[in-house]
C-alpha cells in the first residue's frame, strides 16, 4: 500500500534556485526508506514538502492517495500523521524541560491531561529518557537531545516518521541507539523515511533507496540494486558502501563467488568460501568424483563451529593412495544467540541463564534494557552493533545472550533467522522468556563428548 506519493513535484526557493524538479516518488507503508544524496541535493526541502510545511509550486503530494490540501485543518491532520525530526535538535526542542517539549505535540492535538501524560511517559520510556524528564535541554548531550526530538514526534503517534540526517553529530554508540530505535518503530508498523549522505547507513538500514542529485531523482530501488551501479553513484557524487566495495575486491580475486550483496560483516564473512581442500588417505577402491563421509570433526579440523559433519568429494587420487578431496562442512554444535525480553525482567533468571547456559558473550540493545542491566551490575560485552557481533561470536561456536525489549526482540530474531537461512550455517536462535521457550537450554545437559569420532 502506498502511503506517500508525489506527482511532478516542483519547488523553487524565493531567490530563484530550484530545489526540487519533476519529482515522482511512491513510498510504501511500513518500509524503511532512505533518501541519499550530497548536501544540497534537495532532500531537506522535499521533507518539508512531504510534511505540508512548504507548498509545491507545481504538482502535488498525496497521502493515502488523497492530495494534500493546504487549509489549516487539513494541515493539522497531515502533520499529525507525518512527523518530522529536524537535523539540528536545538531547532526542534524549544520548551524549558524535556517533559514539556515532548508534551507539546500531544497537547496541541487536544488530548486530555491524562492522555498527554500517558503519551509522554510512553515515548520517553521508549527512548530511555524517563529519568531525565525534568531536565532542561541544555543539560543534555547531543544523543540525548536527538532522542528527545524523536520522542517529541513519537508522542503524536504518527504513521510516517521523517528524519533529516538522523545520525549527524552523534557518536557511534549514540548513532547505534537511534538506529535500533528506528528499527523498533518500523517493527511496530511506522513508515520511516530518513535522509543521509552516509552510503553505509543507507545500504545497511533501508528497504528502499531514492538517489537524489541536483534537485532531481536519479535512481531508485532496493539498496542492493542501487549501490551496485557504480556510474549512478558517481553521478550522485557518492561512493560505494564499504562492505560492498570489500566484497567486490574479494570477488575479483576469486575468493568469493555469486554476485552477492553482503550488507553486514557476518554476511560478508559468510561469502568468503575459498575451496576447502585436504589430503586424506583413501581406501583403494575409491575413484575420482566419489563422495566420502569423513564423519564428525572437532578441534582444529572444525573451522566454522565446534563440531562439524564433513562430507568430501574426491577430486584427484595420487598413486601412493592419498587423495585430494574437497570438503563440505555442516556445523553440528555451533554456538547460538539467545534473546531475553527485558519486558519481563528478572535478575535471578538472567543470572541463572548466564550460568547454566554457559553464555560467554552478553549484549544489550536499546537504552532501556542497557540502563536496567547496568543498574544490576551485569557485565555487558557489547552495546553497539549487537546483532552483528553476536552472529560473529555464534559462528565461532560461542553462546551469546542479547538483552532487549519490545519490538527489538522480534527485529533481532528476524535478522538472525534470516542470516541462518541465507548462510546455511546452523546455530540456535531463540527467545528465552517467551512462551515458546528455548530448545537450547534443554539441550545443554547433553554432553558434547558424545559427538566425538
Amino acid at each position, binding site marked *: 500500500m502506498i502511503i506517500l506519493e508525489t506527482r511532478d513535484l516542483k519547488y523553487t526557493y524565493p531567490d530563484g534556485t530550484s530545489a526540487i524538479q519533476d519529482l515522482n516518488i511512491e513510498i510504501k507503508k511500513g518500509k524503511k526508506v532512505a533518501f541519499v544524496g550530497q548536501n544540497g541535493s534537495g532532500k531537506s526541502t522535499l521533507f518539508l514538502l512531504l510534511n505540508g510545511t512548504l507548498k509545491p509550486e507545481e504538482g502535488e503530494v498525496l497521502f493515502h492517495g488523497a492530495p494534500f490540501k493546504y487549509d489549516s485543518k487539513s494541515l493539522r491532520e497531515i502533520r499529525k500523521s507525518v512527523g518530522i525530526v529536524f537535523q539540528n535538535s536545538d531547532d526542534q526542542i524549544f520548551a524549558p524541560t524535556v517533559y514539556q517539549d515532548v508534551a507539546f505535540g500531544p497537547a496541541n492535538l487536544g488530548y486530555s491531561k491524562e492522555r498527554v501524560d500517558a503519551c509522554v511517559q510512553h515515548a520517553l520510556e521508549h527512548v530511555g529518557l524517563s529519568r531525565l524528564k525534568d531536565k532542561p535541554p*541544555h543539560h543534555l548531550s547531543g544523543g540525548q537531545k536527538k532522542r528527545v526530538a524523536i520522542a517529541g514526534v513519537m508522542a503524536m503517534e504518527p504513521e510516517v516518521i521523517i528524519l533529516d540526517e538522523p545520525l549527524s553529530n552523534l557518536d557511534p554508540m549514540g548513532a547505534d541507539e537511534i538506529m535500533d530505535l528506528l528499527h523498533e518503530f518500523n517493527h511496530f508498523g511506522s513508515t520511516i523515511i530518513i535522509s543521509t549522505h552516509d552510503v553505509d547507513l543507507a545500504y545497511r538500514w533501508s528497504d528502499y533507496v531514492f538517489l537524489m542529485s541536483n534537485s532531481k531523482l536519479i535512481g531508485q530501488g532496493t539498496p542492493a540494486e542501487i549501490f551496485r551501479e557504480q556510474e549512478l553513484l558517481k553521478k550522485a557524487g557518492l561512493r560505494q558502501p564499504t562492505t560492498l566495495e570489500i566484497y567486490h575486491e574479494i570477488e575479483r580475486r576469486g575468493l568469493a563467488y555469486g554476485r552477492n550483496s553482503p550488507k553486514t560483516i557476518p554476511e560478508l564473512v559468510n561469502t568468503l568460501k575459498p575451496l576447502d581442500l585436504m589430503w586424506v588417505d583413501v581406501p583403494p577402491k575409491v575413484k575420482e568424483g566419489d563422495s566420502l563421509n569423513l564423519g564428525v570433526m572437532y578441534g582444529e579440523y572444525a573451522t566454522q563451529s565446534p563440531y562439524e559433519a564433513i562430507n568430501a568429494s574426491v577430486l584427484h587420487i595420487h598413486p601412493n593412495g592419498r587423495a585430494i578431496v574437497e570438503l563440505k562442512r555442516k556445523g553440528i554444535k555451533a554456538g547460538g544467540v539467545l534473546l531475553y525480553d527485558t519486558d519481563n525482567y528478572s535478575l535471578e533468571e538472567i543470572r541463572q541463564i548466564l550460568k547454566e547456559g554457559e553464555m560467554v558473550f552478553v549484549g544489550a540493545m536499546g537504552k532501556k534494557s542497557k540502563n536496567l542491566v547496568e543498574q544490576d551490575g551485569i557485565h555487558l560485552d557489547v552495546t553497539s552493533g549487537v546483532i552483528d557481533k553476536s552472529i560473529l561470536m555464534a559462528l565461532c561456536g560461542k553462546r551469546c545472550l542479547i538483552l532487549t525489549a519490545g519490538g527489538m526482540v522480534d527485529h533481532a530474531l528476524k535478522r538472525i533467522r534470516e542470516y541462518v537461512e541465507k548462510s546455511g550455517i546452523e546455530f540456535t536462535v531463540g527467545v528465552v522468556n517467551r512462551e515458546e521457550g528455548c530448545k537450547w537450554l534443554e539441550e545443554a545437559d547433553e554432553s558434547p563428548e558424545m559427538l566425538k569420532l
Partner: protein
Amino acid sequence: MTNILDDYALMSPLRHRNNWLKLAVVFFGLLIGVSSTSAITPLFIALSMSFATVALGKAPLKLYLKLLLAPVGFAATGVIIIAFFSGSGPELLSFKLIGYPFSIRADGLELALLVLSRSLSGMCCLYFLSLTTPMIELFAVLKASRLPESVIELSMLIYRYIFVFLDMALSIRYAQTVRLGYSNLRRSIHSMSMLGSTLFIRSWEQGDKLFLAMNSRCYDGKMTLFEVHRPVRATELFLTFAYFLSTLILFYFTKNISIV
C-alpha cells in the same frame, strides 16, 4: 556543566519541594528582615537561610560565600559611611586624618549594623530562592499569578533560547579568539560588533526555524504548561511554622534591644 546559578538550582535537592512553600519562607524572611528594628532578627534570618541553602539545598559553601562577598562588599562601603557620618550619642572612636576629625558615635554604629544585617538577610533569602528554585519551576508560579499566557510562553521560549544563543556566542567568540580577533583593543571592538550582528541574524533565523518546528507539531497558538504537582508534606509544614513562630518571637523580644 555548572556555570550559572540556575545550574546549581537544578541540582539542588530542594528543587523538588513545593515552590509555594519556598516562596512563603523567602517572603516571610524578607518582610521580617526589613521591618525589624534590631540587628539580631535579620542576622538570625540570614544564618538560618544560609544554613538551609548550604546544608539542605546542597549549594557548595565556597560558591555561596563567594556569591555573598559581592553584595556584602557594596553594603559594607555604604555601612562605613553611615557609621562615620550619622547619628548622635556618645563617641566610641575618633581620630584625625589629614587634619579632618572622624568619629563613630553609638547611634551611627547601631544604624550601620542594622542596615548591614537587613541587607544581609535580604540577600540570603534571595540566594536561597535562586539556588534552590530553577527558572523552570517558576513558570508554574508565574502562571498561577495570572500573568498573561503569552508572557509566560515567551518567557519559556526565551529561557530555552538563552542557552542556545549563549552556546552560539561562546563558540563564535572562541572562533574569533583563535584567529586573534581579540589581540588588541581596536580588533576587540571590531570582533565584538561582528559577534553582535551575527547573533542578531542567527536569532532571526532561529525564530524562523522555531516557527517551523512548532508548526510541524500542530502548533495552534497555545503552549500548554504542564505543572508538576508537589504536595507539601506535614513535616515540612510543621517545620516551616516552627521557624516562622521562633522568628516572630525573636522579632518581638528584640525589638527594643540595641547591640551597642
